[in-house]
């Protein structure tokens, strides 16, 4: 039970080995400290995992967590999080998804679902108004994500005698076959990164459906509604959330990344792809985009819908355009859209698939691993993807990811990963703060968990991307802010509204130029704010999240507490990783990015990582080994 609104007041622990569901104690004090989503999941993993578990052991947990704003009508608040030990990295990881499962998990009466153990045979689990039912999934095993969801609808119809409105989280063949970067699919949306689908597969868990009639309460309906309206109107008026994202989606970044030398090309050998226009957001909009769509309750609607095989399906995001475009020297946009669909259907992360493929192409070119794959030779790749998902032929090896392959065959210097997770499409040698973020990110090569500094270093703003000055502090504060934003269940894309509109509308103006020049110097101020967030005991319209937590949840929240919650989340995740052997030693990037300038004529076009790492640990108040001390954890209230 809880005294706060927005929550359902229940966290449940489901043991697949015994079939028993029990209440997991989660208090209002926990809610105040961790709010929800990934932060909540990280604390549950911190309290439950000892450091001895492995990703595929039955003792590994899957935590599916929602935020208190999900289902309350707050804008873009439909996201849910899946956390577990990642088969790709071996450490804790999370994957955020815009599908409907979180919304319906709350309708079934739960804020979070913790899964442990293993089913004896392929199973799907039905959650119905707080009750759990186990069903044989033998007939579903082997099915792709879309057909699995259709088959589940039919089974639910047969069982209940009427169609059941529900949320689903399912895996495709990749998850069943323990592909280390298999995803979980909810509707058309993927919890793509970190191999959460393989953890499902290791537990013989094909799918979960969730349905119910519960509705989260709202603390102050009038104020909440008024605030939603104000926020939606701001989102719609902002050039990023009201124009770029709805009209071009994330795909709109390709051209800008090209100009800034940020577009991963030829397995990150270069930051520019000569044929970038063929696989750009503009080409997608002009040639293929049928319509837009969006996650539930989202006014931004950034999703592209494209035609594939006579159907209209979800189109590729920027990461997929970059990594299955220039990074493997593919110029065929229609083919790329088809791969995007096929990979979702197989239940496989497009980023890690593409990153592993690019590594394999280069390894083949260099004679390290003769696998028949070459840059620019794109015919037949659909078959390769299918082979990965079913672990056939070279697919069985590609299913292991670029880190393991480079350890086996050589070529570590061009295996573009951090902690085992392949990097997103932003080439960091022209945005060194983003490079730092990739290296220190708790879940490995993730642009968002890494603080997403590239948004300041060329995209959105024009802060010097080569200087390390201030980047450690900015990386920390951005990581903490993004942690905090997603705790409520909200989409991180709403945070682009935080970039002042004048920076976007007039980036050549004096004011924008001054801001860009000043940003690298604000490190010390950021550090003061981080040491004493209590000084920020106010709210800001540009950070509407605190208002939402006040009005919808009834939680007394200000900027300082919000930042502290983000910091706590980042630290608790790091503390779990420490149990699994993570330290400064793991905060690395491949030599291609740290030792080889992108532009041979400009020695500064590489990531000066060692220099920034130490500053980052100091900013975070961590030890030299890159870990939070006992004192730090106590100060944050984690211990």
């Amino acid at each position: 039970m809880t005294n706060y609104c927005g929550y359902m007041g229940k966290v449940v622990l489901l043991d697949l080995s015994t079939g028993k569901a029990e209440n997991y104690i989660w208090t209002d004090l926990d809610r105040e400290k961790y709010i929800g989503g990934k932060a909540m999941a990280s604390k549950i993993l911190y309290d439950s995992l000892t450091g001895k578990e492995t990703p595929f052991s039955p003792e590994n947990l899957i935590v599916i967590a929602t935020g208190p704003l999900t289902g309350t009508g707050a804008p873009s608040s439909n996201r849910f999080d899946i956390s577990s030990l990642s088969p790709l990295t071996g450490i804790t990881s999370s994957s955020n998804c815009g599908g409907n499962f979180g919304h319906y998990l709350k309708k079934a009466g739960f804020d979070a679902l913790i899964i442990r153990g293993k089913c004896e045979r392929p199973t799907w689990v039905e959650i119905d108004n707080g009750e759990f039912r186990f069903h044989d999934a033998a007939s579903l095993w082997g099915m792709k994500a879309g057909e699995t969801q259709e088959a589940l609808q039919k089974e639910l119809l047969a069982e209940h005698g009427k169609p059941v409105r529900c949320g689903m989280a399912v895996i495709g063949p990749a998850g069943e076959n323990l592909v280390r970067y298999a995803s979980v699919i909810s509707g058309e949306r993927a919890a793509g990164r970190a191999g959460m689908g393989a953890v499902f597969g290791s537990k013989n868990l094909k799918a979960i459906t969730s349905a119910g009639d519960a509705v989260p309460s709202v603390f102050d309906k009038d104020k909440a509604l008024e605030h939603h309206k104000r926020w939606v109107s701001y989102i719609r008026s902002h050039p990023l959330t009201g124009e770029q994202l709805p009209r071009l989606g994330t795909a709109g970044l390709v051209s800008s990344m090209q100009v800034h030398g940020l577009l991963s090309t030829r397995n990150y050998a270069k930051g520019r792809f000569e044929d970038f226009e063929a696989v750009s957001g503009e080409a997608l909009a002009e040639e293929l985009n049928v319509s837009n769509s969006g996650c539930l309750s989202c006014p931004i609607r950034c999703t592209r819908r494209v035609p594939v095989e006579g159907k209209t399906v979800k189109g590729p995001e920027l990461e997929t355009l970059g990594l299955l475009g220039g990074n493997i020297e593919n110029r065929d946009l229609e083919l790329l859209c088809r791969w995007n669909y096929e990979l979702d259907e197989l239940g496989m992360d497009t980023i890690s698939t593409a990153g592993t493929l690019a590594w394999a192409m280069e390894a083949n070119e260099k004679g390290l691993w003769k696998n028949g794959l070459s840059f620019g030779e794109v015919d037949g790749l659909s078959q390769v993807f299918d082979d990965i998902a079913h672990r056939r032929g070279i697919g069985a090896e590609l299913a292991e990811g670029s880190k393991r392959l480079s350890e086996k065959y050589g070529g570590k210097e061009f295996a573009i990963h951090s902690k085992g997770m392949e990097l997103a499409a932003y080439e960091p040698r022209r945005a060194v703060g983003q490079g730092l973020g990739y290296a220190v990110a708790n879940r490995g090569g993730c642009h968002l968990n890494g603080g997403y500094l590239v948004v300041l270093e060329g995209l959105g703003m024009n802060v010097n991307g080569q200087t390390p000055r201030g980047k450690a502090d900015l990386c920390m504060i951005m990581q903490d802010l993004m942690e905090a934003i997603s705790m409520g269940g909200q989409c991180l894309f709403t945070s682009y509204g935080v970039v002042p509109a004048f920076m976007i509308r007039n980036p050549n103006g004096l004011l924008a130029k001054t801001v860009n020049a000043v940003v690298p110097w604000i490190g010390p101020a950021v550090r003061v704010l981080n040491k004493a967030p209590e000084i920020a005991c106010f709210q800001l319209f540009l950070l509407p999240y605190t208002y939402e937590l006040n009005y919808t949840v009834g939680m007394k929240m200000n900027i300082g507490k919000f930042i502290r919650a983000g910091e706590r989340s980042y630290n608790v995740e790091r503390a779990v990783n420490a149990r699994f052997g993570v330290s400064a030693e793991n905060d690395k990037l491949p030599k291609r990015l740290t030792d080889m300038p992108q532009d041979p004529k400009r020695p500064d076009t590489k990531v000066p990582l060692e220099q920034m790492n130490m500053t980052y640990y100091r900013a975070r108040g961590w030890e030299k080994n890159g870990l939070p001390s006992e004192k730090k954890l106590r100060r944050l209230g984690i211990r």
Partner: protein
Amino acid sequence: MVTVKLFGTLRLDSGVREFTAEAASVKELYPLVLREIRAKKADTAVTERSLRACLVAVNGEQVSPRAKLRDGDLVYLFPAVAGG
């Protein structure tokens, strides 16, 4: 003669992808871009002011809007974008 390419919402709004023009500087280019856009879409909402707010790249590298141009240059004009 320089080649001009438009990107982002500017391209979607104007319907202009690419054209060639005689201009010795980016500054000289703005009225020519506007003329090209108006020829394609008379009721366009694009103004010279909104063009001046675009980022400019010449031969692939971002430059100042005050940059000079040389014969054969490839000029990109694109509004600032973020987020993915």
